[in-house]
């Protein structure tokens, strides 16, 4: 037994207890401040709508990660809990007498309760085991409920969906939520509350055991916990927060359709969560922000945005299974050793050419797309603020050249970057 590392038994726990409050509160205060201030930085309505969309996705992705990251349950049909919560909220909106006595900010709570109700029913049989069985049941239930949307028209509204008007709610301190900015603060309140509650959940006995069951269900059984019930509680809680996200979606867009609960939406939230990183609590938050930006900003620039998002997802799965949060957290040891500064130059040397190469590749994709799909005779295209003839040879040569040189340079400098990486992560040695 190795005894060279000895610590005072009382100290680590004291340090943890004393430090935990300030350490855990800081990010929340920063987040609250940012939520408050962002509308003053991005003032136009479309930016505020994008942020609303972002916060809704944050709640949904965090709820999804309660299953995937913390509970080890891969769901292919989690959009139904958000969707059903959202539909329920739309129906409440349409009950005019009731809704007139109802302050709008409370509505997402009902979305949550309906999402939770559905999760109670489905979870009662789907959480018996994790793994493939759980994934298949989630897929089946997802398809089933999506199919119901055209069968049970009274609830799901068929193909048109259900629409409503949030402004019929009881004015909330005189506010009727006419403007996107009003909805922004409502959404911000809920994103902060939901994220805090989900974080606290992960610190409770049932939240800790969710991790234990994920890592080793059998061991958890022999510690007195039923793996199934631990999964069930995570599932129900996740359904609640998904429903909250659905309710907020209803408030924002005032319409819900089959699209909100189909398998494609379930796939998107899996992608968002994985892109952000399932291993850390804040991973899905990054994922939701990045994905929403790509979805809204990139889609204005190119029709092929989904192609690039798909490529990014693929690259994440293959090279960075920890997601964006994993990439960030990889640097913590180097920062702790005080050697992160040594990484800046190698990063610039490798990543800037890589970025240029990737942009060159994207140009080739766009040009190919233009040549194949633009109307005959329309040879002119605009890319990176430059207008040129997509059928001429010169732009192709330039694009190929930039791609080859960029990626080639990145490849050539990669060993140096790797060396710098291992240097930055080893104790001692030259600085």
């Amino acid at each position, binding site marked *: *037994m*190795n*005894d060279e*590392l*000895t*610590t005072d*038994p*009382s100290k*680590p*726990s004291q340090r*943890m*207890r004393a430090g*935990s409050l300030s350490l855990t509160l800081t990010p929340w205060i920063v987040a609250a401040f940012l939520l408050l201030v962002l509308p003053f930085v991005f003032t136009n309505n479309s930016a505020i709508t994008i942020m609303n969309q972002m916060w809704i996705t944050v709640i949904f992705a965090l709820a999804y990660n309660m299953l995937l990251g913390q509970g080890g349950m891969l769901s292919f049909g989690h959009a139904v809990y958000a969707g059903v919560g959202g539909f329920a909220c739309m129906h409440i909106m349409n009950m005019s007498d009731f809704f007139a006595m109802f302050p709008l900010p409370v509505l997402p709570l009902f979305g949550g309760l309906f999402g939770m109700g559905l999760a109670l029913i489905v979870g009662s049989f789907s959480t018996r085991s994790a793994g493939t069985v759980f994934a298949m049941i989630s897929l089946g239930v997802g398809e089933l409920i999506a199919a119901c949307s055209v069968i049970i028209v009274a609830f799901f509204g068929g193909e048109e969906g259900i629409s409503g008007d949030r402004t019929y709610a009881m004015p909330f301190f005189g506010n009727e939520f006419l403007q996107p900015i009003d909805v922004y603060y409502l959404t911000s309140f809920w994103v902060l509350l939901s994220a805090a509650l989900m974080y*606290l*959940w992960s*610190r*409770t*006995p*049932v*939240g*800790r*055991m969710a*991790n*234990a069951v994920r*890592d*080793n269900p*059998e*061991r*958890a*059984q*022999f*510690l*007195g*916990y*039923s*793996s199934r*019930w*631990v999964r069930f*509680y995570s599932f129900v*809680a996740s359904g609640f927060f998904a429903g909250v996200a659905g309710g907020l979606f209803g408030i924002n867009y005032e319409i819900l359709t089959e699209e909100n609960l189909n398998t494609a939406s379930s796939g998107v939230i899996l992608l968002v969560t994985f892109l952000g990183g399932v291993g850390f609590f804040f991973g899905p938050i990054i994922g939701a922000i990045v994905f929403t930006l790509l979805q809204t900003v990139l889609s204005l620039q190119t029709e092929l945005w989904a192609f690039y998002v798909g490529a990014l997802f693929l690259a994440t799965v293959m090279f960075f299974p920890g997601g964006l949060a994993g990439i960030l957290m990889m640097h913590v040891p180097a920062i702790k050793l005080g050697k992160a500064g040594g990484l800046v130059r190698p990063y610039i040397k490798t990543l800037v050419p890589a970025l240029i190469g990737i942009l060159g590749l994207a140009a080739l994709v766009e040009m190919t797309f233009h040549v194949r799909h633009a109307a005959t005779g329309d040879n002119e295209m605009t890319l990176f603020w430059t207008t040129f003839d997509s059928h001429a040879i010169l732009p192709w040569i330039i694009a190929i050249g930039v791609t080859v040189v960029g990626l080639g340079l990145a490849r050539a400098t990669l060993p140096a970057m790797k060396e710098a990486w291992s240097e930055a992560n080893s104790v001692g040695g030259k600085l």
Partner: protein
Amino acid sequence: MSTPALELTGLKKSFGKAEIIRGIDLSIGKAERHAIIGPNGAGKSTLFNLITARFPPTSGTVKLHGEDLAGLQPFQINRRGLSRSFQITNIFPAMTVFENVRCALLWAQGYKYSFWNLVNRSRSLTEGADAILDQINLLARRDLPAGMLSYAEQRALEIGITIAGGADVIMLDEPTAGMSHSETDYITDLILKVTAGKTLIMVEHDMGVVFGLADRISVLVYGEIIATGKPADVRADPKVQEAYLGAALEAEH
């Protein structure tokens, strides 16, 4: 005579036509340290798995403190005061050493499935887990992921997890398998220390450990117990020597 801690009657298990456990009757008293030995494939681990309901017996009963365990799930058996370790190290590798032990304390301290308590606010959890870590000499490794520990440390951690919940019947499946001499001595001392006053049932190959630890020994050969008794009596039993022990004892001395 008081109720035995663990009582097996006519326990049988078949997988298809293969009869692995062929009718075992065994009674283990409170605070007894009982070792189950036998050649490879004798069914020792299967017997452990039958007792802890990892799979159901074909026939026969298992009684813990006089209560029949038939139809109970592993977690229910654990709540009744029986805890086990595994032949292959079975911990939570991604969690820290401290969290491994803390998880093992949650049910015992009555936290159940609560989501209104915060684990790091509980002094009794933190201090309880640190006390266990102190006992198994892993305080220095407290905040490391359990998967990064050395093999012997992981085995020690597994014993820590097994005893943490305060179960009074502890079952250890080959706790010293794959260890060096010094590591084996270390784990043996550890087992003696942490199971004081508790009922211990262990499967073990190392005869030094068995004769050093056990009050009584059962010899399992082809799914049957051919001898049960004090170490000296078992050692002298001609049937045992013939079946198994002779060769092992010769190798030992």
